[in-house]
């Protein structure tokens, strides 16, 4: 029986994976534009608070570490699904989503702190560029956490066998991409003030 959507591909690459890489390519330009704008407007604010007064590097270093570790957990989760090890898949999917949620909690705390110090979207150019850039990144992490949670529920119901590894792999691609974007943001926004 021939299946239109599943017959062999011209490159041998799964269609889903190729499509998703293309999407990531597109996302690179999206975050590239956001980051470039942040860089262009660096030092352009005419009123405070300014970045050096408010950015908390030690705290963000911890949350960066948390996000990096979630990528590690993602690798183990994928390995678990590929090997059909349901327990490993469940533990590490939960770990990935949990670390992602922890990162978001750090971000929520950071945003509230900034708000209390008088920095909002509309305070100055720093506020506008900072909140939009990190906010869009946070929104991406949120989507990732929801996605991982759905995968975890599927694994819990026994609907995530080795045959579904591609689903987890694609989620992993997304998760690692979001992580890499954060490394760029952390370096350019926090470390290189």
């Amino acid at each position: 029986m021939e299946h239109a959507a599943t017959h062999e591909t011209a490159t041998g690459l799964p269609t889903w994976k190729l499509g998703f890489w293309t999407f990531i390519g597109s996302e690179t330009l999206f975050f590239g534009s956001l980051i470039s704008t942040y860089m262009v407007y660096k030092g352009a604010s005419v009123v405070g608070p300014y970045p050096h007064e408010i950015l908390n590097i030690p705290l963000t270093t911890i949350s960066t570490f948390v996000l990096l570790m979630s990528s590690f957990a993602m690798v183990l989760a994928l390995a678990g699904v590929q090997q059909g090890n349901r327990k490993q898949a469940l533990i590490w999917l939960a770990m990935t989503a949990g670390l992602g949620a922890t990162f978001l909690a750090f971000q929520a705390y950071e945003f509230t702190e900034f708000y209390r110090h008088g920095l909002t979207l509309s305070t100055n150019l720093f506020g506008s560029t900072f909140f939009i850039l990190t906010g869009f990144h946070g929104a991406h992490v949120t989507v990732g956490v929801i996605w991982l949670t759905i995968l975890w529920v599927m694994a819990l119901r026994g609907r995530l066998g080795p045959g579904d590894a591609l689903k987890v792999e694609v989620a992993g691609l997304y998760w690692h991409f979001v992580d890499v974007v954060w490394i760029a943001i952390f370096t350019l926004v926090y470390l290189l003030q």
Partner: protein
Amino acid sequence: MATAETTALRTAPAHRSGLWSWITTVDHKRIGILYGATSLFFLLVGGLEALLIRLQLAVPDNDLIGPELYNQLFTMHGTTMVFLVGMPIAVAFFNYIVPLQIGARDVAFPRLNALSYWIFLFGALLMNSSFLFGAAPNAGWFGYAPLTGEQYSPGLNIDFWVLGLQVLGVASIMGGINFITTIINLRAPGMRLMRMPLFTWMALVVSFLLITALPVFAVALFFLTFDRFWGTKFFVTSAGGDPILWQHLFWLFGHPEVYILILPAFGIISDVLPAFTRKPLFGYAIMVYSGILIGFIGWGVWAHHMFATGLGPVADAFFAAATMIIAIPTGVKIFNWLATMWGGSLRFDTPMLFCIALVGMFTIGGISGVHHATAPANLQQTDTYYVVAHFHYVLVGGLIMGVFAGLYFWLPKVTGRMLDERLGKLHFWLTVIGVNLTFFPMHFAGLLGMPRRIFTYSSELNLGSINMVITIGGIITAIATMIFVYNLWRSLRHGAPAGDNPWNAHTLEWATTSPPPEYNFGRIPEIRSREPMWDHPEEMIAAAQHVPEKPIHMPSPSYWPIFTAFGITLTAALFLTKIWWTPLLGLLWTAVGVVNWAFEPLER
């Protein structure tokens, strides 16, 4: 998740007719038809807007249309023609033709394809619904900030513009992803990259431009949206915001967009010309490379739209030189089309006539493009009708001619019926006369100092007679387009049966029946050359029209794409209420759609 209705749909045999079958279709051919019909409709809308503009400008000191409505008309004319006609009509051709040309049964992501279409339709309706509020966008199709900021454009006009375009952009990015994956991954055995028809190649280049250019525009639109709705400072000069940033981001998208619009037309005529010259395309490989080069360099020329902002001599020199370099691969294409025709046994059917018109008229537009690229001359020409003449020569003389060539060429495959040749030739000649009468005098009007985007002009400028000629040209073009619409209607009713390959063309889509079956190819053919229908026609036809012994499983119809598309558009539309929580309703709707979609089985 699955309601009783979806279960019924999954088990029922494929419904091939009726409104519901169109709403739930995931067949690339039907989605192509939907894209085509919608964009032809908006061609008429955008054309009507143009006609109103021309009636206003026909005589000096005219007060037929006031300045407010005039601003809305030229903004919506530009926005409509670029986003609701030029881009989607190319996608209509991509949808219908590309899978047939590469020997695929459908696109890589059929439901995503349907989602793209519905988002496009709803986004177009959202944008145009602004007319109902008397608040159509009114700041030009490139929406320069800070003019488009809250301070200078307080009404709903620009809100409709930013939200509508944001929605339309989503559709384009998803379309780009779909076609890159389709073209790279779903080629028939033996359909190597360098055997693909030029149209498919240009679709691939355009798809790369879509996925790279549109996100930049999305970011620019987000900045402007946040400025307008939540008081961010991106384009607020008093807070240190730089108005040039909008121009950079806009044209970083906007110039690749120019090639998004024109490369499909280049692809179309590269596949049409050989059929009417009985010769393979001259210099196939160099045509592919020059198309890729145009797309690539197209990313490095955006600031030639910004010479007047005073970028400085170094930047001016760089962007002037880069822009002129694009003339080289473009010139290569022009000469290769000429060389394809040289010494061929030419047949002048309507598709061929439109191809020839494209080659001639695009060249005129290309030459005035080089004039603009010359930075000092640009300062003289910018914001005059010389610019209007230029881009209408490339977009009407290029894109629209290519589209009509493609429609006369491929519609017989789509409908199984020919368009009338006599009406076609009448349509062609009236179009060529009307278009040239409209846009050629604009060069003179521009050089004589007629500014763009001003609702009237003084009789002392002595531009009355030129403008009257231009308006008459516009009316002739409108009559020509009506003849096309009549021809289309007539063909659907009484058109002569087309047969499978009425033009004796060389590419794979002509191996199937007209119209093709839902599964396109009974057996996927094995491709052995660039001109399969000239080199091994019997073999290709035998494979394509092979009657399958067992039913071929195609992706099931689904209503989740239209459901999700509605949610996405609703989210954007609810921002117009300026009540902060209302867009959450749209997001919730979208989430329901996405989750149901994710758990719906792909095949019945």
